[in-house]
């Protein structure tokens, strides 16, 4: 890559900080248009009047940084362009969208492009399209007449392929004397970098967030805008918009509960309209020992203070894609292969497919050979919006029920399942049975909830926050496989913890560069930072299958931030909650000396 000479001039002026971009005189990122978009306001009820009726009102400025996806595997592909067409081995969440992207960009028939993703090391929303890097690898392969492997470096990855927008949430919120939320006002801005976000198929990478989050407030006014800055563009990132929304709202909830003199748990139970989440709040409170352990903010004795906090999640997606297809091939020797053109992005999709198929056929999951991650299989959706589980499960159900039906007919056996399986398959003679099926209605739904509780210890002299325990209570309809489900939730909590305490893209306003495009100074949780995570599952078979990948990372930061505030008695309103910010919130940091 160093052999490529790029001729470019550094921009004479630039803006990299959101606050600076708000200034109408800031250097324009896009010529002829202001960096800050025109504010858009929504209002329900009569907010100004409602504040006057409140018994307690708080105001806070809650901020979240730009977060980088930082999957362990960076973006990239190996592409082989021969006379037969293009084959790309891609690190992607969407084999179909990469195929269509490559075909479009390179003017090839879609039938001549094959995309394979056997395994992949994480994407979190940033890996849908073919990307500049994919198209480039293909072109280089054509020129070289040989396969070309092009993986981005960690540096490239930090700069150019997406991030979660920041948020700067000015929230004013009030409640009536009985603890009913009554008035809410938010002005929020954030940056999606030089673009508005959104790579093909990835969905919302914009800076707006849902508000007021979770809770019912009759009088609410929300004003949002996005600010363009000269920095990497956003893309969808695990539950776009929700982790910052949860952090801001849940911080405000605790601050208001304190002002009202109410237990933050009771305050939530009173104002959360979701019966599922209210149930989860009670469950989680029991598990963490809220009644026994909760004490008013800042009253823990000693230098290292412990605290409790909780926060909630809502995730509107998680349902299945009606376009999902799949097929089964049953061989005379009794082996069976399920093929779906989806991809397993490390979430256990293959396990889910095997578990569903095994149950219908009366076999064990080990007996099912699952093949995904190849555009030669019947098409499936990209893995975004936590939709894969709810897409493949009903599809596999259909494929397997049809296959069983046909096998029973062909073999003449009334029940080909379980013990009868091999006998039935033998009757197929020499030709395998191949059956095609598709997603069916009624077996899945959307809108998972979830709440998390955190217990932290804060060293008030060094500012270090230790998360001791997280109780994660989640629902996702019918639970298909506990182990992979718990693994998603563990991962969500760990990512949420990074967001709470460590992660932050640092842009330098003097030079305009990113200062931490590596894992040394873009800090991520390591094993020793990870708390005891207790996963509590609420099984709701009546709702069908719902995805869990995204909701599991939504409430963690809010819960940790509230636990920190509860421990030390003052709020650190800005993520990440670093030792420096904890010491500052405690009033321990002396003024700096201007040189």
């Amino acid at each position, binding site marked *: 890559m160093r052999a490529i000479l790029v001729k470019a001039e550094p921009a004479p002026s630039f803006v990299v900080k959101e606050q600076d971009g708000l200034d109408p005189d800031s250097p324009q990122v896009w010529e002829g248009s202001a960096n800050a978009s025109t504010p858009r306001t929504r209002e329900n009820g009569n907010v100004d009047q409602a504040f006057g009726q409140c018994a307690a009102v708080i105001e806070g400025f809650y901020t979240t940084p730009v977060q980088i996806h930082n999957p362990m595997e960076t973006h990239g592909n190996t592409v082989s362009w021969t006379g037969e067409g293009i084959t790309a081995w891609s690190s992607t969440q969407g084999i179909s969208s990469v195929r269509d992207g490559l075909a479009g960009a390179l003017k090839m028939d879609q039938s001549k492009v094959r995309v394979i993703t056997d395994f992949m090391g994480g994407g979190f929303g940033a890996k849908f399209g073919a990307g500049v890097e994919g198209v480039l690898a293909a072109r280089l392969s054509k020129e070289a007449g040989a396969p070309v492997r092009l993986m981005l470096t960690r540096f490239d990855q930090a700069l150019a392929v997406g991030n979660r927008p920041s948020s700067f949430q000015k929230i004013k919120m009030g409640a009536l004397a009985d603890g009913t939320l009554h008035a809410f006002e938010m002005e929020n801005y954030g940056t999606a970098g030089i673009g508005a976000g959104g790579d093909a198929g990835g969905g919302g990478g914009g800076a707006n967030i849902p508000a007021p989050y979770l809770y019912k407030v009759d009088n609410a006014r929300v004003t949002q805008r996005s600010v363009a800055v000269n920095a990497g563009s956003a893309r969808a990132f695990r539950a776009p918009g929700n982790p910052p929304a949860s952090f801001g709202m849940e911080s405000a909830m605790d601050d208001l509960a304190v002002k009202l003199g109410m237990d933050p748990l009771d305050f939530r139970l009173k104002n959360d309209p979701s019966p599922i989440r209210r149930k989860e709040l009670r469950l989680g409170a029991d598990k963490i020992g809220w009644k026994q352990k909760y004490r008013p903010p800042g009253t823990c004795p000693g230098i290292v203070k412990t605290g409790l906090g909780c926060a909630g999640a809502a995730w509107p997606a998680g349902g299945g894609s009606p376009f999902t297809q799949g097929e089964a091939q049953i061989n005379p020797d009794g082996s069976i292969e399920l093929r779906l053109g989806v991809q397993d992005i490390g979430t256990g999709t293959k396990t889910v497919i095997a578990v569903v198929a095994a149950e219908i056929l009366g076999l064990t999951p080990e007996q099912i050979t699952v093949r995904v991650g190849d555009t030669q299989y019947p098409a499936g959706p990209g893995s975004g919006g936590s939709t894969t589980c709810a897409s493949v499960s009903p599809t596999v159900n259909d494929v397997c029920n049809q296959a069983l039906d046909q096998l029973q007919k062909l073999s003449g056996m009334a029940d080909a399942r379980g013990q009868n399986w091999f006998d039935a398959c033998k009757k197929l003679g020499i030709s395998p049975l191949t059956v095609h099926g598709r997603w069916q209605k009624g077996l899945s739904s959307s809108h998972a909830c979830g709440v998390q509780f955190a217990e932290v210890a804060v060293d008030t*002299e060094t500012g*270090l926050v230790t998360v001791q325990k997280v109780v994660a209570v989640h629902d996702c309809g019918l639970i298909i496989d506990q182990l992979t489900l718990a693994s998603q939730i563990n991962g969500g909590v760990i990512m949420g913890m990074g967001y709470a*305490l460590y992660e932050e893209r640092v842009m330098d306003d*003097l*030079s305009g560069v990113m200062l*931490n495009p590596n894992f040394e100074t873009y800090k991520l949780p390591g094993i*020793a930072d990870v708390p005891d995570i207790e996963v509590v599952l609420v099984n709701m078979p009546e709702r069908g299958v719902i995805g869990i990948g995204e909701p599991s990372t939504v409430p963690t930061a809010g819960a940790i931030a509230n636990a920190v505030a509860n421990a030390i008695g003052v709020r650190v309103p800005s993520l990440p909650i670093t*030792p420096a910010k904890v*010491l500052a919130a405690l009033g321990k940091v*002396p003024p700096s000396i201007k040189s």
Partner: protein
Amino acid sequence: MKAFEYATAFSTASARDLLADDGAYIAGGNDLLGRLKEYLDSPPRLVNIKAIPGLDSIQHGDDFCTIGSLVTVARLETDPRIRSLFPGLQQAAAEIASPQIRNVATVGGNLAQHSRCWYYRQRDIQCLKKNGDLCYARNSDNRYHSLFSGNDCISPVVSSLGTTFAALDATAVVLSQGRELRWSMAEFYADAWKMHLAHNSLKPGDLILRVEIPLSRPRSAYLQASDKHVFDWALVSCAAAADFVDGKLTSPRVALGSISPVPHQMDKANQFLEGKPLDSDTVAHAADLLLAGAKPLEHNAYKVPMAHALICRTLLKLKG
């Protein structure tokens, strides 16, 4: 990184010859390879010094323990005799980076590692330390930088071993132009205090042979504060060493890392602690003396209370 020649030296003399004017010694390579990959340095030749006999041993004498420059950080962490003679050194070693890095990182490389300033390590920035004309950190994001400096560069020393060796009053023996120089840690880093281009006082071709630690301070301790629990650089680190007889300190020394281009020491603090008991008032006063004159910048003032707490805790740890 740019292509380079690679040569292995089997004696200190051949190491020097192979290096010529523009090569670089490579020991564990943790620091050097990172610099090559980021194009911060592009030496035409790397001289592997790990095959030089004798530099990888720990020797115990009557008054000194001698640690060869090729001894790994992992060995300092796990060697039972080091643990009992210099608990602070063992604690410092155990906090460095990750087990994988400690397994290959050497004492010499740890002392001689270059600045970790995030402007310095950013390939697109040409700051003062890279022959540019501006210290970006001073004027912009200095959250990880020094509270003290003798020049315009405020990149702090980050060698945890250097800081601990300073508290132990260790001497680095450096082979320079055929002569063995004996440097205190203050001398080893003196150039970094004075000159913005320097990371330490080594001149091209200088080879660290060993570190000699006097056995006169049986009590030692090390603590660091970081953003994370492990595998993270110290925001502030503190090492202390002394003898502790009849409830009183003798020959106490305290040094701090990550707040100055050199391990930060104050004679006044050491003198004040001499003969004192270890109680909270004493250690707090010593901390005040150590931090007197600190010049916090816009984003690193938090290091002052953090350092204060660490000094107190590290000193109290000497009680055992």
